[in-house]
């Protein structure tokens, strides 16, 4: 077990675990956001629960933050290591002949997502922290829907949102299957998994974009 995070396969495995965790989180985040399209009440209830239940606030949320920090820190470390593994580059390299654009540009799609996360945290998460802990306001279990609608009125925010989710889709189009391969799952289910991967990696980001556009134009 010792030094597993120093070995190539150990790092690959840890990268995949953090990615799988992020993908589960993303699904859960989507499930709550999409409620806002159907029912103001349901969205408020779900948001209030997530925002106040202690296990979410003090266990899952810190794990999520550490998970994201681990994922992108390890992503950058591996990228630097991998670049060092080839000192002289090819005069001519035909990468598209044998691999997808997505697979070759994980670091760039990842960094763009990271940029979005910073904006997103500053806008929404920081606001939550202010309201709840730093400058406590009277508890209002119905504020979430209004805040969401207001958030999506800005064309700039919606624009950033759309761009970020396009890059998230590109990141996941390689990442989804890659994560399973990394944890050693390559078997008779791999083909079916590729189908699920397409649905997830395009469907979920498209869903987030739909929610943003819906609230932008519906109110």
């Amino acid at each position: 077990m010792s030094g597993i995070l120093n070995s190539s396969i150990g790092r690959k495995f840890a990268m995949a675990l953090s990615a799988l965790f992020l993908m589960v989180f993303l699904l859960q985040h989507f499930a709550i956001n999409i409620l806002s399209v159907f029912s103001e009440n349901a969205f408020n209830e779900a948001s209030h629960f997530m925002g106040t239940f202690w296990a979410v606030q003090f266990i899952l949320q810190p794990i999520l933050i550490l998970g994201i920090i681990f994922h992108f820190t390890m992503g950058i470390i591996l990228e630097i290591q991998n670049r060092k593994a080839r000192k002289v580059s090819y005069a001519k390299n035909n990468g598209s002949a044998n691999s997808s654009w997505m697979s070759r540009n994980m670091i760039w799609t990842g960094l763009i997502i990271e940029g979005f996360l910073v904006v997103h945290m500053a806008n929404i998460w920081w606001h939550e922290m202010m309201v709840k802990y730093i400058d406590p306001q009277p508890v209002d279990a119905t504020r979430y829907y209004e805040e969401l609608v207001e958030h999506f009125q800005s064309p700039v925010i919606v624009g950033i949102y759309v761009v970020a989710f396009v890059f998230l889709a590109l990141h996941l189009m390689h990442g989804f299957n890659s994560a399973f391969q990394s944890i050693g799952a390559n078997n008779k289910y791999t083909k079916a998994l590729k189908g699920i991967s397409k649905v997830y990696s395009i469907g979920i980001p498209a869903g987030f974009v739909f929610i943003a556009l819906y609230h932008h134009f519906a109110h």
Partner: protein
Amino acid sequence: MNLTLKIWRQKNANAKGKMVDYQISNVSPDMSFLEMLDVLNTELIEKGEEPVSFDHDCREGICGSCSLYINGEAHGPDRLVTTCQLHMRKFKDGDTIYIEPWRAKAFPVIKDLIVDRSAFDRVQHAGGFISVNTSGNTQDANAIPIEKANADKAFDAATCIGCGACVASCKNSSAMLFVSAKVSQFALLPQGQVEATDRVMNMVNQMDAEGFGNCTNTGACEVECPKGISLENIARMNREYLKASFKG
């Protein structure tokens, strides 16, 4: 066919190399790629110039000696062939062809297009074997029944010729396809079980020590591998490695 060749020339391991242009005419589409280089070298020798050094041996796709990064792909544009099996009919009259050595920190250039692939030997020495007592009372290997599916997969893994095209093609210069083939050919057979834990740990540690990069599953290696070694082997090696790490 008349062709323009852009070839990496480098005097020795320490020299600074560069791409040099050569014109070659009357190339027959039936020639193999290496024969075309033989013709070029004959012309260079006649002109009193230094011929281009490149690796080759069997010229029938089984030894793993030949290499060359041709027009941006290991072993050239054809699939499931080594450079010695690549034919000039894959190119057109007037083409410009880039010919470069494998590029990886773990495969330093020795001269022109020849690289030092002894890193692979060291990985192999670290665990790519089984220890069998051959003192006269060995059991006939065929006496141990092996499931057909596993025997086939082990054999497929064993067809790896150690050419290094996987490393050369990988954007991370990762050697995982090679190492995973060598791990898999034993991991799938009962004879390989005795040393399974040490084998995968030692081979992966050696692979890392040689300075190969980290796999990000782009799949470039599988596409460019002349023997069609499957990514399934890398997943198997990951499993074997994780199993071994948790054991001890």
